[in-house]
């Protein structure tokens, strides 16, 4: 499977190789001298542009390749630019230039994986829906157990945000995580299913609590968390007492459904 993905990736890189060789040879004809650095840099640039062009066409399918497409195409473009001319290659393998090229390649790959991890982490989230049964006079947590865990700090913050005047039995009913170690948490305390779409903004980091009051209005407790870019929407599912929790971000949408009014 990986071998097939790699083969597909190599087939995709063929136009880039041709283009990179042509550009490098043109540069050689213009300058009438070997320019290995110029060949590598033009090939790298072409590779990055080529990867961006493929991503605009293929969208999320670019994640299905065996080797990450961006550094792969940049490396292939650089190698094609370098190997297009024997004089370029001869000069490139001499120290210290060869060490500069190897260092640049290492920087490209390490930098790519670091940036990718950073983007993935900053977009990870956890959404917990807590059902609040207002028939209970005192505000307390359901102790019947379960694996939807909220920390003691989070539980205390929820209680403080609801206020001591209002009562209710609090039961976590849904947890939706986008990652094993989410970067931010949204806790939604609901009394009933929504009747119209409600839009919230996810935090950049930390914990934010959204609370539905008995009259159906919403309030939020951000406690210093700055609003982020991703949107959280509660959508009523027509014909049923069900609310769809939808998170939209740069990597598309994820959603789950919960029924609060269901006894």
């Amino acid at each position: 499977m990986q071998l097939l993905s790699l083969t597909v990736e190599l087939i995709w890189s063929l136009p880039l190789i041709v283009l990179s060789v042509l550009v490098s040879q043109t540069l050689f004809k213009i300058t009438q001298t070997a320019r290995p650095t110029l060949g590598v840099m033009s090939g790298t640039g072409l590779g990055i542009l080529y990867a961006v062009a493929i991503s605009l066409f293929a969208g999320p399918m670019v994640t299905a390749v065996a080797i990450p497409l961006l550094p792969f195409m940049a490396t292939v473009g650089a190698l094609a630019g370098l190997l297009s001319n024997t004089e370029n290659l001869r000069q490139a393998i001499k120290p210290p230039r060869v060490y500069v090229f190897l260092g640049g390649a290492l920087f490209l790959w390490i930098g790519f994986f670091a940036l990718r991890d950073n983007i993935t982490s900053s977009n990870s989230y956890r959404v917990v829906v807590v059902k609040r049964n207002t028939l209970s006079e005192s505000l307390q947590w359901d102790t019947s157990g379960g694996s939807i865990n909220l920390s003691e700090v989070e539980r205390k913050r929820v209680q403080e945000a609801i206020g001591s005047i209002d009562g209710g039995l609090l039961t976590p009913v849904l947890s939706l995580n986008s990652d094993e170690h989410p970067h931010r948490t949204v806790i939604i305390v609901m009394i009933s299913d929504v009747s119209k779409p409600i839009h919230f903004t996810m935090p950049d980091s930390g914990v934010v609590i959204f609370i539905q009051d008995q009259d159906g209005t919403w309030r939020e407790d951000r406690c210093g968390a700055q609003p982020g870019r991703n949107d959280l929407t509660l959508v009523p599912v027509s014909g049923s007492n069900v609310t769809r929790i939808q998170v939209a971000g740069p990597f598309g949408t994820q959603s789950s459904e919960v029924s609060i009014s269901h006894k």
Partner: protein
Amino acid sequence: MAKFYSALPISFGGVEVSSRKHLARLPDDFHICLEFIGNVDTVVTCVGLCHGQASADQVGVSASRNPATGEVTVTLDDRVSYPLLPSPDIDITMTIVLKQNGEITYTGNTTRFPRITVLERSDGGSWRQVYQSNPWARPFYYQTPLWLFGHTPTFVVTHRIVPATP
């Protein structure tokens, strides 16, 4: 043990860029439907699967349940049909854990498919959407190159399929 249901309607969501239009001929939606029959507090007697992909017959599906722990594992195997595209097919691995208190946890990751929806129902009730991943639904087209930094999406969904016994 396993039940297969008929395909749900296929739709291609919100991709308006003309160069991508031919991708619409690819299967674009995939449904996994799981039906639980019986009281989760005691025993689950059936796990069913359905799929909304035209050519999904070739997909390898396996489901097993450990009677001691109640853990059900569902795996859908990978498949390649389009050699010049990076396998725009199913690649989903999912583990389902059923607990005695009625809680159910889905853990998995999905790639290579425009949209995947996991549905469940219990004892012939209505279908409920447990999880949907739609990577094509993006607010701005210019953000598409961000996918060059994309990871295999992982999801963990936990909820109660039946109310806990008081």
